[in-house]
């Protein structure tokens, strides 16, 4: 267990190092990305550019620049944005984390529940009208772009029907901290949750249905039926239980990617100042320190999520326990 854990930690450090190098290099290899020109402003003179380069250390060799930046990012933690002078990168990212976690966490609850319900019902009623209707609905859910769905939701709840009894409770776009006002937090996030979860309910429902149907063909299902236990128990205790392995793997990866900034479209549409939106803005202004910070943060969460999946795996699949 200890070796597995230290192996994981080593892996995490390696992945984060690799990603930081790649992000750093892409930034310098991108044509027209000279950060000193951006910092100095439009039509700056050659002398100003040289001065800026020197001030920000941009005239030093790349490995040194990388080292300096990592030092300021991780050791002294006083790395500041190139674009918004004086904005410290680390506190900005940290303040964005609760927003992203609230959004993705709530959506995850919805999509896991929704995916389970859709998958089990469709799998159990395979080939019937119910199954087909659910599969068509989930296909629609998977196909709708999240930014479009978000904009439509905003249009209806913020503007068109905002004055009707149905949506008058919807607060203006933005995030309300949980500690400050739990009910407000919930109201501000409930529509983003549904918007973000729609795609995943469809996806997870379809995957679970396929996995369940496959499992129900297995020999052990026949054994379970021969035991004289009811079909519901066969389906849930034997079929669904064994199908969960695929489900959990998928969930871990998706959750990690979303917390790592993958929910940026939803965050942008709903004006939630999360990590995704931060990344999006930093990319628009080629703000290297901010990009590095968010990208490394994302890598951390993806690797973490993988780790958590592996741990959960040991609980849901006894076969994983005996593998060294």
């Amino acid at each position, binding site marked *: 267990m200890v070796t597995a854990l230290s192996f994981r930690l080593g892996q995490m450090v390696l992945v984060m190092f690799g990603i930081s190098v790649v992000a750093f290099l892409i930034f310098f290899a991108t044509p027209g990305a000279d950060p000193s020109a951006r910092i100095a402003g439009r039509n700056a003179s050659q002398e100003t550019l040289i001065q800026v380069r020197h001030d920000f250390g941009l005239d030093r060799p790349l490995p040194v620049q990388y080292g300096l930046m990592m030092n300021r990012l991780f050791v002294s933690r006083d790395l500041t944005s190139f674009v918004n002078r004086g904005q410290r990168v680390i506190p900005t990212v940290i303040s964005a984390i609760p927003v992203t976690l609230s959004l993705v966490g709530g959506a995850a609850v919805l999509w896991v529940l929704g995916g389970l319900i859709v998958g089990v019902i469709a799998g159990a009623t395979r080939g019937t009208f119910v199954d087909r209707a659910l599969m068509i609905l989930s296909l629609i859910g998977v196909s709708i772009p999240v930014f479009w769905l978000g904009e439509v939701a905003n249009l209806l709840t913020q503007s068109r029907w905002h004055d009707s009894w149905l949506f008058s409770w919807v607060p203006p776009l933005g995030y309300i901290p949980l500690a400050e006002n739990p009910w407000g937090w919930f109201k501000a996030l409930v529509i983003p949750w549904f918007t973000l979860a729609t795609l995943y309910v469809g996806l997870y429902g379809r995957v679970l249905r396929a996995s369940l149907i496959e499992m129900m063909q297995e020999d052990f299902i026949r054994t379970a*039926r021969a035991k*004289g236990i009811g079909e519901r128990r066969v389906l849930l205790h034997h079929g669904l239980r*064994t199908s969960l392995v695929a489900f959990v793997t998928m969930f871990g990866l998706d959750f990690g990617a979303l917390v790592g900034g993958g929910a940026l479209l939803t965050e942008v549409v709903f004006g939630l100042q999360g990590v995704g939106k931060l990344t999006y803005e930093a990319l628009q202004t080629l703000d290297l320190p901010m990009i590095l910070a968010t990208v490394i943060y994302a890598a951390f969460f993806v690797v973490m999520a993988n780790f958590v999946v592996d741990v959960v795996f040991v609980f849901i699949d006894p076969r994983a326990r005996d593998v060294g």
Partner: protein
Amino acid sequence: MSADAPLLVVKDLTVSFRSDEGLVRAVGGISFSVEQREIVGVVGESGSGKSQTLLAIMGLIDSPNAIVSGSIRFMGQELIGLKRRALDAIRGRQIAMIFQDPMSALTPVHTIGNQIAEQVRAHEKVSAKAARPRAVQLLDAVGIANPDRVVDNYPHQLSGGMRQRAVIAMALSCNPALLVADEPTTALDVTVQAQILELIGRLRDQFGSAVILVTHDLGVVAEVADRVLVMYGGRFVEEGGKSSVFRAPLHPYTWGLFGSIPPMEGPRPARLAAITGIPPSLSDLPKGCAFSPRCAFRHDACLVQLPIMQGESHRAACLLPETTRRQFAVQRAGGVEMQR
């Protein structure tokens, strides 16, 4: 019902599947019965309909394209067309099944003990706590060493033979009157096979169960069965007491089966006699006797007329005159009897 009435009476059981090639008849109207505490061996090649017969008895044919007709009466109760709830009250409790491949027959994510307890608790009002010692006891009864430990093991932690024992323990958990076993030893090593067969033979004495044992291995039948049914192309071709069938088989197909066993004594044959040809496709059975295309004794009548089972206790479905067959039978069986 009286004490000596047959436990299971199957009449005109037919199992067909709708398919692209039309109706495929896997089991073509078979009738047989099983007495209490009797071990019946059903022998035949792959695809002869043995397994489908067992699955039909268990009500486990759930393909929407399957048509099961005829009558299966167990302790006087008709099983075909029974509602799921009523069926669940019988299977697992009074009829239990052992499967061919123990490697895939147990749910991988539950412990052996929980899987046994699940069956016990489905049929009896027992707490989970009380079901556990029962599981340990059952595992012990089927010859598992360290039943206290194995009860908490997962299937993947056990060998094939151990898993098959666990499956048998599960099948026995409610003292079934009838145990149906679908090639229970095929997937196992030869040494383990012998142990499992011995175990099945012992079950009747300890638990008083009747057994239907499906196999393609005549040796397995010779080991434990009281009575033998030979199946070909979805029908029975021969039926009789084990010693009678082994001493004087009456059907050319049975002769072929015996001919393909290497003799234990005497000179080693250069080649084992094989039954020529391949088993018939179930969607395109010959019009007359299903075995006629492969039969060395075929005559004109075999191609048009469907033979029916004839005889008293030892019966066969063949159009050859019985006296002719008896002559052959004595010639052929000589070597076979020696090896048993």
